[in-house]
C-alpha cells in the first residue's frame, strides 16, 4: 500500500504557508494580500486534515469505531466558515476604501504613522 | 498603659485627612484656614499628649493595627515610638506655624491649598508612624503627590518644570523602594508586611546588596544626598515658600527616617559593606554643596544647598552605625527642622516684601527691620551649629560618631563646618547688613504673628541648645532596635 509520511504534508503545508506570507509581504494590492492570507488559511486546513488523518489512523489500529480525527475536519469546516465571514467584512472594507481614494494600494495608507 | 494613647496614632492620620477632605468643599478662605489651623493644632496637642503617655521602656513596634488587606498580609499598623515621636512633633509643630503665617489672599483658591497641605500633613504622619511596609510606602507617596500639586499650582515662574523634575525623580526613587519592599515581602518566612516580620527576614548577602541599593536610592533621592540632589534647589526655589518649609523642614527627614527605620535594621551585611563608600560620597557631597552655597546668589537656593550639607551630615552619621551618632541624628532631625523653618520664614518675609530672592539685590534690611534681623541672626547661627543653639548638640554627637568611625572622615566633614560659616555669614552680611539697597527701601518690620511664630522657634532653638536632655529621654528607646543586628550581644 502506498505510504506517504505525514512529514510531506507538513512540509507542503509549511511551504504553502510561507508562500502566503511572502505574498503578504511583497504585494501592495490589498486584495492580493487578502488572497495570500486565504492561501495561508488553506495551508493550515491541509495540515489539519493531514493530522486528522494521522491521529485517526493511529487510533483506528486500536478501535475500529473511533471518531478520532473528526474534530480536526470540523475545525477546518469552522475555519472555512470564519473565512467566509471575514471575506465579507474584508471586501466591504476594501470597497469602502476604494470608494474614497480609488485605490487599494496599501502604500497609500500612511496618514497614520509615528 | 493608657488605653487612649493607643488611638493617638490613628487620630493623627484621620484628623488631617478629614480636615483635608473638608477643606476641598469649603469656599470661604477664612473657614478653610481655621479648619486647617484647628486640625493641625489638634494634631500638635495629640503629639504633645503622647509625649507624656509614652514610656520609653515599653518598646513595641505596633500600637494600632487594623486588618486591611488580609489577602496580601498587610494591615494598617501604626506606632509612635522614640524614633517617630520627635518627627511627629516636628510635623505637628511646623504645620500650624505655616498656616498661621499665610496671610489672607496670598493664594488663589486657598481652600484647595489648605486641603492639600493637610493631605501632606496626613501623609507625613503616616510615613513616620507606619509599622507596616506597605502602609509606609503608601504614605510615602501620599506625602509626595499633594506637594507636587501645591508646588505646581502656586509656585514660581519655572514651577512646572522644576517640580516635575522633583516629582519624577522622587517617584522613581519610591518605585525602587516598592520593588525592594515587595521582594522582601516575598522572600521572608512570614507572609506579612509588618515591620516585625521584615526585621526578622533572613537574607543572603547578595539579596541584601540588591535590596540595600534599591532602598538606598529611594532614600538618597528623598533626603537628598549628593549626587542625587539636583532636584532639590530648583524645587525649593520654585515651590511657594510655605511648601518649601514643609519640604525642607519635614519631608527631607523622610529619607533619613527611612534609613534609620528600614535600611539599617534590615540589611546589616550590605550596610557594613557599603557604609564607608557611602559616607565618603556623602561627605564629599557636603563639601560640594557648601561650596556651591558660597557661590549662590539666590537666597532660597542658598538655603537649599545648605540643607543638602546638613542633611548629608545626618545621613553620614546614620551610616556610621554608632549609637552616639544615631542619637544625635534623632535630635538633630527635629532641630534641623526648626532651624530651617526659621530660615525659610525669614526668606519668605523677604521675598514677600521685596519680591526678589536675589541676594545681590538685597542689603541693609537690618536697618529697616531690626526685629527680623535678630531672628535671622539667631537662625543663621543655629544653622552653623553654634553651641547653645539646638543644632550644636546633634551635630556634635554626629561628628563624634563620624570620628569614631574614621577620624579623617570627621576631619573632612569638619571642613563643611567652616564653609557653613562662610556662606551663612555671607548671606547675613549681604542681605541684612550694609547699606539699604533699592529693593528694601519700603521694607517694614515683621507683624505680630510673624514675631510670635519666630519667637516660638527661637525659644526652641535656645532651649534645645541649652538643655537638650529631655529630648534624649524621648528617643532613648529608639537607638537600640536600629543597630540591634550590629551588636550581637
Amino acid at each position, binding site marked *: 500500500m502506498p505510504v506517504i509520511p505525514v512529514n510531506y504534508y507538513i512540509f507542503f503545508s509549511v511551504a504553502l504557508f510561507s508562500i502566503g506570507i511572502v505574498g503578504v509581504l511583497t504585494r501592495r494590492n490589498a486584495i492580493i494580500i487578502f488572497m495570500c*492570507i486565504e492561501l*495561508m*488559511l488553506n495551508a493550515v486546513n491541509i495540515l489539519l486534515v493531514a493530522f486528522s488523518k494521522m491521529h485517526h489512523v493511529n487510533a483506528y489500529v486500536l478501535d475500529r469505531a473511533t471518531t478520532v480525527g473528526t474534530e480536526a475536519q470540523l475545525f477546518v469546516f469552522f475555519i472555512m466558515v470564519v473565512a467566509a465571514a471575514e471575506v465579507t*467584512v474584508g471586501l466591504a472594507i476594501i470597497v469602502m*476604501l476604494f470608494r474614497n481614494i480609488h485605490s487599494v494600494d496599501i502604500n497609500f495608507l500612511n496618514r497614520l504613522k509615528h | 498603659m493608657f488605653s487612649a494613647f493607643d488611638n493617638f496614632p490613628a487620630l493623627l492620620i484621620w484628623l488631617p485627612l478629614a480636615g483635608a477632605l473638608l477643606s476641598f468643599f469649603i469656599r470661604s478662605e477664612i473657614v478653610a484656614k481655621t479648619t486647617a489651623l484647628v486640625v493641625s493644632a489638634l494634631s500638635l496637642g495629640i503629639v504633645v499628649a503622647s509625649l507624656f503617655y509614652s514610656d520609653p521602656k515599653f518598646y513595641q513596634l505596633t500600637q494600632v493595627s487594623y486588618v486591611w488587606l488580609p489577602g496580601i498580609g498587610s494591615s494598617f499598623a501604626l506606632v509612635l515610638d522614640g524614633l517617630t515621636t520627635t518627627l511627629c512633633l516636628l510635623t505637628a509643630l511646623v504645620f500650624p506655624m505655616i498656616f498661621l503665617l499665610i496671610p489672607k489672599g496670598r493664594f488663589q483658591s486657598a481652600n484647595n491649598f489648605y486641603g492639600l497641605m493637610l493631605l501632606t500633613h496626613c501623609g507625613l504622619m503616616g510615613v513616620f508612624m507606619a509599622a507596616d511596609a506597605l502602609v509606609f510606602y*503608601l504614605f510615602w507617596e501620599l506625602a509626595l503627590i499633594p506637594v507636587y500639586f501645591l508646588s505646581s499650582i502656586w509656585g514660581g515662574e519655572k514651577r512646572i518644570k522644576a517640580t516635575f523634575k522633583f516629582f519624577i525623580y522622587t517617584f522613581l526613587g519610591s518605585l525602587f523602594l516598592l520593588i525592594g519592599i515587595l521582594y522582601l515581602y516575598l522572600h521572608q518566612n512570614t507572609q506579612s508586611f509588618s515591620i516585625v516580620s521584615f526585621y526578622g527576614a533572613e537574607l543572603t548577602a547578595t539579596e541584601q546588596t540588591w535590596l540595600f541599593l534599591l532602598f538606598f536610592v529611594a532614600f538618597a533621592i528623598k533626603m537628598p544626598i549628593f549626587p542625587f540632589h539636583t532636584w532639590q534647589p530648583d524645587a525649593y526655589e520654585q515651590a511657594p515658600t510655605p511648601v518649601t518649609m514643609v519640604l525642607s523642614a519635614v519631608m527631607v527627614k523622610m529619607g533619613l527616617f527611612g534609613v534609620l527605620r528600614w535600611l539599617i535594621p534590615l540589611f546589616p551585611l550590605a550596610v557594613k559593606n557599603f557604609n564607608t563608600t557611602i559616607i565618603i560620597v556623602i561627605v564629599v557631597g557636603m563639601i560640594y554643596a557648601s561650596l556651591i552655597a558660597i557661590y549662590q546668589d539666590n537666597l532660597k537656593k542658598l538655603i537649599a544647598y545648605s540643607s543638602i550639607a546638613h542633611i548629608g551630615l545626618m545621613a553620614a552619621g546614620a551610616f556610621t552605625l554608632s549609637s552616639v551618632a544615631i542619637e544625635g541624628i534623632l535630635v538633630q532631625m527635629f532641630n534641623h527642622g526648626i532651624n530651617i523653618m526659621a530660615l525659610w520664614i525669614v526668606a519668605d518675609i523677604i521675598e514677600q516684601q521685596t519680591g526678589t530672592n536675589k541676594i545681590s539685590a538685597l542689603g541693609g534690611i537690618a536697618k529697616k527691620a531690626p526685629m527680623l534681623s535678630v531672628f535671622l541672626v539667631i537662625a543663621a547661627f543655629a544653622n552653623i551649629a553654634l553651641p547653645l543653639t539646638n543644632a550644636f548638640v546633634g551635630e556634635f554627637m554626629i561628628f563624634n560618631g563620624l570620628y569614631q568611625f574614621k577620624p579623617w572622615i570627621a576631619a573632612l566633614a569638619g571642613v563643611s563646618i567652616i564653609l557653613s560659616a562662610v556662606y551663612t555669614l555671607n548671606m547675613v552680611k549681604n542681605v541684612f547688613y550694609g547699606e539699604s539697597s533699592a529693593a528694601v527701601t519700603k521694607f517694614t518690620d515683621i507683624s505680630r504673628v510673624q514675631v510670635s511664630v519666630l519667637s516660638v522657634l527661637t525659644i526652641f532653638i535656645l532651649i534645645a541648645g541649652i538643655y537638650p536632655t529631655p529630648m534624649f529621654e524621648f528617643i532613648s528607646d529608639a537607638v537600640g532596635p536600629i543597630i540591634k543586628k550590629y551588636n550581637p550581644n
Partner: protein
Amino acid sequence: MNAIIISALWGVLMMYTGFMTSAKRTVSLVAIIGVVLVFVANWLEYLGLSFVNMDMMGMLQFNTFGLVFNGIILFSTLIYFLLSSTEIEKSSHTPSDLYALMFFVLSGISVIAGFQSLLMLFIGIEIISIPLYVLAGSDKSNLKSNEAALKYFLMGAFSTGLMLMGIALLYGSSGSFSLEGVAAGVGVLTPMRASGMVLLLASMSFKVSAAPFHFWTPDVYEGSPTVYTSFMATVVKSAAFFAFLKLFESAFGEVHGEWQMLVAVIAALTLIIGNITAVFQQSVKRMLSYSSIAQAGFMMLGVFALNTYAKQGMILYFAAYSLATIALFAVLAKLKDHSIEALNGFAKQHPVVAFSVLISLLSLAGIPLTAGFFAKYYMLLAVLKYAELLWLALVAILSAAISVYYYFRLIQAIYFREPAAESELDFSGFFKVVMVFNAILILVLGIHPDWLIKLIY
C-alpha cells in the same frame, strides 16, 4: 453562558431597534438596559443560576475567575455606554447597528470568558475581531478611519492565520483541541508543540498589542472614531489578555519555564517601546494609544508570571485600566482638538470632570491609593516571586517612571496652565455624575482592592 445568550439576543434586538425607532436616545437607552441585563445575567450565573442547562461537551466552562472577568468587562461596558452614548449616537445615522456589533463583541468576550477548547478560542476571537474591523471603519467618510479599518483588518487576518497554524501544529502534536488535551503532554515541549506555541504567542501578543506585534495599535487607535477606540483599548484588550492568560496557563502551564523568558522579553520590549514612544507624542489620542501598549506591557508581566498574584492582579488590572481609560477617552471624544495644548486650563473650566480625569491619570500612572497602583503592585509581586528576575521588575518600574512623564504632562496642562480660550464644551450633569462615580470607584479599588479580588474565590 447566560451572558453569551443574552448579549447575542440583545444584539439582534438592537438591530431591530433601528427599524422601530428613529430616536437615537431610545436606542442608547435600550443598549444600556441591555448591558445591565447582561451584567445581571452574568452575576446570576456567578451566584449559580444558569439560564440554560446544556452539555457544553467540554467546549465552554465558566468558573468564578472567568465570570468575574466577564463581570468587570460588562461593568466597564456599562460605564462606557453611560459616558459615551451621546458620541455613539453622533457617529452614525443608525447607531443601533453599531450597538448591535458591540453586543456581538460582548458575546464573543463571554465566549472567551469560558473557552475550554482552541476552537472556542478561535471563534471567540473572531467574533470579537470582525465587529471591531467594522467599528474601526465606521466613520466611512473619514480617510483615517478607513485606513485604520483596513490596517486592522489585514493585520488581524494575518495574525489569525498565524494563530490557526499554531493551533494546527498543537493539534498535530497532541491530537486534541481542548486545553486539557493540549496540556496533557509529557511535560516537555516537543519541537512541534513549541512551534505551535510560538505562533500562538505571536498571535496573542498581536491581539493584546504587545511589542513587537503592536504596530497596528497606534495607527488603528488613532484612526478609529474615538468612542470605538475607547471600546477597543479597554474592553477588548482586557478580553484578549484574559484569553492569553488562560490559554497559556491551561495549555502550557506545566512547561512554564520553557517559554517564560520569551514572554519576559516581550513584556520588557512592550514596556520600553510603549512608554518611550509615548513620550514624544503631541496628540493625546495617539499618546493614549502608546500608553495602552505600555499598560499591556505590565499585563504581560502577569502572563509571564502565571501565579496567584498574577491572576489576582490581572483582575484588578482589567478593572483599573478599563475604568481609567474609558473615562479619559470619554472626555477626549468630546474634544475637537486632540493636542495636549487643547487641555490647557481644563481644570479651571470644568473642575469636576478635571478631577475625574486626574484620578484616572493617576491610576494609569500607578500612583498609590488609586486602583492602578495595586494593579501594578500585583504584577510586580507576581514577577518578584521569581527572585532571579529582578531585572524585569526594574525594567517595569523604570518604564512606569517614564509613563509618569507623559501622564503628568496631561495633568500639567489640565491643572497648571492657563486656558487659551473659553471652553465651548458643555458636560451634562449626568456625564459629570458618572465621571465622579467612576473616579470614586477607582479610589475605592485603590484603597481596598481585596473587595474585588476576593470575588474570584
